[in-house]
């Protein structure tokens, strides 16, 4: 309420959906930073990837007169109206993780998914200089951020790369199903040259993942088979170290959380912030994996 707002500012961080580890990291960053500046981080979002539900929540936050909102829009277009509505009420709105460039949002904090995807694509093309066949594993076929990553990824692949039929394969953000799909992909395409995961799901199940790749593990270690995955969570780092992935490309959700709070705080105090803040991308290979593992501990 109003009274609270006078004492302690409430900044809202609205993810695309609850229960996604990526946003959980952003929440951690948000809370740490909020504690530092004496504000409150209100982390709330739709239970499922649902743009209408996300809009409803933002409207509720406007009603609550929060001091600022940072949102990862499920849909860059449908979010426009509610962003405008918030600004009209004097509530600063910025976007994080995924942007809505045509909206009136004041700033964006994060790595653009498409450009992060492009980074992954570059790494993939680098690892397979002669091109080859590849498959894409994704979470949900309709998730905009994942589709952006895939689009960015493909934009860096030359004409000598060929996507197998049936790709992209969806695993519904389910690790178990992700492993199953990898088994199926490899059974169908034993000569496959590489796989791109638009998120780290199969690697969150390290033991099962290792088993699924057992026929190609040697090729993988020899560089004849390439795996590029999004995210840089600890189990993934360990797998990379064991040679079960070639490159990991990670965004920095924690930095997105801290950055969101900082910018909202500045804005609510009448300051200005840069239009776009790049939180950067981590590219992990066997060369630098140890330093990341050390940080993760």
């Amino acid at each position, binding site marked *: *309420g109003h009274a609270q707002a006078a004492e302690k500012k409430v900044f809202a961080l609205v993810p695309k959906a609850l229960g996604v580890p990526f946003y959980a990291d952003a929440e951690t960053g948000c809370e740490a930073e909020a504690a530092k500046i004496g504000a409150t981080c209100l982390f709330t979002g739709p239970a*499922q990837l649902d743009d*209408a539900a996300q809009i409803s929540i933002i409207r509720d936050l406007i*009603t609550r007169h929060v001091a600022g909102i940072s949102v990862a829009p499920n849909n860059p277009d449908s979010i426009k*109206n509610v962003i405008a509505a918030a600004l009209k009420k004097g509530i600063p709105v910025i976007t994080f993780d995924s942007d809505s460039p045509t909206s009136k949002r004041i700033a964006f904090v994060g790595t653009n998914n498409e450009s992060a995807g492009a980074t992954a694509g570059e790494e993939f093309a680098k690892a397979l200089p002669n091109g080859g066949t590849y498959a894409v594993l994704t979470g*949900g*076929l309709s998730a*905009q951020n994942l589709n952006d990553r895939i689009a960015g990824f493909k934009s860096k692949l030359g004409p000598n790369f060929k996507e197998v039929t049936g790709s992209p394969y969806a695993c519904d953000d389910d690790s178990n199903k992700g492993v199953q799909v990898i088994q199926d992909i490899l059974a169908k395409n034993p000569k496959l040259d590489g796989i791109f995961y638009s998120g780290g799901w199969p690697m969150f199940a390290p033991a099962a993942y290792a088993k699924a790749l057992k026929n190609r593990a040697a090729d993988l270690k020899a560089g004849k088979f390439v795996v590029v995955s999004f995210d840089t969570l600890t189990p993934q780092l360990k797998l990379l170290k064991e040679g079960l992935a070639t490159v990991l490309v990670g965004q920095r959700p924690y930095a997105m959380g801290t950055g969101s709070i900082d910018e909202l705080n500045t804005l609510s105090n009448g300051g200005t912030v840069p239009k776009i803040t790049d939180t950067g991308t981590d590219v992990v290979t066997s060369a630098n994996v140890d330093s990341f593992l050390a940080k993760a501990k």
Partner: protein
Amino acid sequence: MSGATEDQGRRSFVSRALRSRETGIILALIIMVIGLSVFAPDFATPDNFLNDSRNFSFVGIVVLGQAMVMITGGIDLSVGSVWGLSAVSSAALMNAGMGTIPACVLALLIAAAFGLFNGLCVTKLRMPPFVPTLATMSIARALALVITRGHSIDGFRPDDSPFFNLGGGAIFGLPNPFIIFVVLSVIASLVLSRSVYGRQLYAVGGNERAARLTGLEVDRLKISVYVISAVLAGVAGIIEVSYLSSAISNQGLGKELSVIAAAVIGGTNLTGGEGTILGVFIGAVILEVLRNGLVLLGTDAYWQGVFVGSVIVLAVFIDQVRKGFWRTR
């Protein structure tokens, strides 16, 4: 449901109200509203109520059809997916250059086709309603994906197109979706309580065999409710597209559960023959007020599912208590 009898058994208003099916949940709603007004100062503001009224309208419109299906003893799991499919197909058609009205009509016809399929499976092939509607739930969602191939569809109409008024506009300050919901509710309520068709639906749900032997066209009645349910899901999808000014394949995802929850909270019986529009209307409102209230109260987002679940059980419990279930054992 039954006609008034002037001459006998004229009960006092109070006792009639207490006897009514909806008392329990209206009471639950009132308690919620009072509680929220006290603990969340922003709750009882005109702006917030207007927001709420728009938000519950989407699920509300769909719940009207679901209630009719449930009254005949069925269930329609496909509403969420049909909602998504008609959202996506209307946008895609407009995107392809079709006029607003033809595009929407075509999208609704597609929805109706799904309803027809469900109805035919339930009647002619005598499948339990769970089966075909579970299948069309999967099929319609997949088709929405096929149409969009995962991308969102936008920019299909100029920004000032009157189409966007349907979901985004307001009349006399009331959001259009809400007005549409209320109008549809009034019509549905009249149809269910006053029309021959509505009465026959209750009979089908109450005792299908007797209804058949009473000369009712049971199959046709059942097919009709699945079509109505699908079309209303389609209407919700199109209004949502207009509101969001963009369409994405996972619109309406999982909404079948909200819709069924609203119907159940509203006192609709899953075994058929019981349910009123007033009830499901309140059911839809309760779900939204709850969601809205939890955010306004600043409840931990992760805990919200616990409250939603508890309210579902509680609302039904209050209803059971009103019916005096414990006495008739």
